């Protein structure tokens, strides 16, 4: 496969103004990824700052209650800043620093990637600006304040649908204004090459740890891995180490919103078509003339009209399955996990939990499901309360 391609997907479809920036990034990454000083510093940050390895937790009550496969939760919610986003961000911000950049910019949907970027920037001493859709700043108000507290400037994006895709547009525009001293910390396995590869490499630690942990606990591989899909970074992070293990099923959960038969959905693989956008060839929700469709999900982090190119490829070759989980199912799973295990998941992660709830009873008791619990749900408590008709203020 040519560099930066996953089958026909991927590529570098960006304005010429940014081409040398992504080429420079690719070269720097190729160099530093095997540089012993870089590797040691990143590993130390992951261990001592982010709190890795994250736990692989046996959800015993949930398993009993569902009466089928054993359910394990990969606890990315316990990482510093509360999600898997920190894995990628520490890698990229450190890389930016090694490249001599003094400023980082990033898009954010749920605010988790923005918070993680602001955190890493403050730790490593880089200036930081975050772009966030206006609608998301409202449903994730707490994270906006958190980013400011961490010393980042938060730019409210009022163009388009005022959500994640527009935040990406605006961050790309800002990068093209100022590439020399600035690195764009892309938050998922998307965008132009080399981002899908870099982000996957920084996230694959999730699956590497799972492999080790499950072998220690169970002495065998899991039967199924389940993760939610926004751009797809926590999912590919969990899946990657197991792609070569054909007996391990890989299941990505897309955000169905009100359902795929409605317009209020963000289930890209289910309703999207192949297209070219945000620097990559992949699947996108779009109309017949190639205008990118407004998408919807209760979850700001999954509210994106595209999906990373490696997932598009895994989908086409049939290696991974992609399923749809609606708002309602996700909210029910959010409440279920909180009650039964005392773990409040991010509403994004609740999409994966919801599918595991459906799947577990259909499997037998010696089978194993590992659910990627990509983040914690504190940020979502107020919006879930509102979903249930309780007006609380953060």
């Amino acid at each position, binding site marked *: 496969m040519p560099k930066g391609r996953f089958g026909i997907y991927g590529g570098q*479809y960006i*304005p010429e*103004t940014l081409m040398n920036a992504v080429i420079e990034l690719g070269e720097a990454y190729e160099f530093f990824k095997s540089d012993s000083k870089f590797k040691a510093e990143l590993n130390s940050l992951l261990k001592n700052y982010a709190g890795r390895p994250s736990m692989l937790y046996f959800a015993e009550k949930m398993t009993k209650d569902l009466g089928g496969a054993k359910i394990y939760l990969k606890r990315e919610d316990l990482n510093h800043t509360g999600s898997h986003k920190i894995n990628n961000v520490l890698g990229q911000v450190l890389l930016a620093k090694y490249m001599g950049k003094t400023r980082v910019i990033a898009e954010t949907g749920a605010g988790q990637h923005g918070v993680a970027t602001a955190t890493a920037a403050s730790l490593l001493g880089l200036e930081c600006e975050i772009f966030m859709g206006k609608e998301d700043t409202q449903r994730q108000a707490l994270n906006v304040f958190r980013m400011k507290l961490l010393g980042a400037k938060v730019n409210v994006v009022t163009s*388009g649908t005022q959500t994640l895709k527009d935040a990406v547009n605006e961050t790309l*525009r800002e990068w093209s204004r100022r590439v020399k001293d600035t690195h764009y910390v892309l938050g998922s396995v998307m965008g132009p090459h080399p981002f899908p590869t870099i982000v996957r490499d920084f996230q694959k630690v999730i699956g590497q740890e799972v492999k080790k942990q499950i072998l220690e606990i169970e002495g065998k591989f899991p039967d199924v891995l389940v993760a939610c899909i926004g751009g797809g970074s926590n999912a590919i992070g969990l899946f990657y180490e197991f792609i070569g293990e054909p007996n391990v099923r890989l299941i990505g959960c897309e955000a169905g919103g009100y359902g795929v038969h409605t317009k209020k959905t963000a289930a890209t693989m289910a309703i999207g*078509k192949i*297209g*070219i*956008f945000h620097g990559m060839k992949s699947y996108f929700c*779009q109309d017949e003339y190639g205008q990118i469709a407004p998408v919807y999900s209760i979850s700001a982090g999954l509210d994106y009209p595209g999906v990373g190119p490696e997932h598009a490829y895994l989908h086409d070759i049939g290696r991974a399955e992609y399923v749809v989980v609606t708002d309602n199912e996700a909210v029910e799973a959010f409440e279920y996990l909180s009650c039964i295990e005392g773990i409040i998941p991010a509403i994004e992660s609740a999409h994966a939990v919801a599918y595991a709830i459906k799947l577990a009873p259909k499997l037998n008791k010696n089978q194993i499901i590992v659910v990627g619990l990509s983040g914690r749900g504190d940020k979502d408590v107020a919006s879930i309360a509102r979903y249930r008709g309780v007006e609380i203020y953060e």
Partner: protein
Amino acid sequence: MNKLQQAFANGKAFIPFITAGDPSLVITKELVLQMAEAGADLIELGIPFSDPVAEGQVIQAASIRALSHGITVDHIFNMLRDIRKTCNIPIALMTYVNPVFAYGIDSFLRNCQETGVDALIVPDLPFEEKDELVPFCLKHGVYLISMIAPTSNNRIHLISKEAQGFVYCVSSMGVTGVRKNLGSDAEKMVKLVKEVNDIPCAVGFGISTPEQAARMAKYADGVIVGSAIVKIIEQYGSRCLPHVIEYVRMMKNAITEGD
């Protein structure tokens, strides 16, 4: 025969950009016809796109206005057929790659050929990805225009060697939009292009005043002006015609005087 060379045959070329369907396709058609009369040498016609990442606020807003009227690629081709009944001015379509891809690349370019479109400008299709369109452009006799930017440096050589029609020199970093101060990069860029390819160079991004245009025209073969015109259209809406035409005359004069 491709009419693009015509654009650079009478001195410095003035190249206005407008978004198709803003404020309406009827006005777009009139704008094309009257700008051609007023001295425009090549018209860059933008296909509105939902997420134009290389565009500043002015052209973003024009895209949204056009899309909110339900403008599609098919409407635009129909308008072009209409224009071609009476007007032969060279036309370049500016479009993001996804609308072309969704339409079907071959059908899109066949329509371009049929409607006398001479060139395509696709800001999110850099040199490395141009083979997505090039075979179809060749088949249908449409030039795919190469862009170079102030950050292109070592790439200018590579890009220019394979450039066809003209080279679009992006004179400023960032996105489209009117700027007070233009950098001095464009002059260097044009020189570097000409070292490897004897091809017309048009400079765009940020130009709005006659003085800026005249300065650019000293070393470039053409001057592209977008946001400044789209702003006039935004301000006057369906009454924009006389204002745009007056502006086009003034700009064409400004770049011709120094000739």
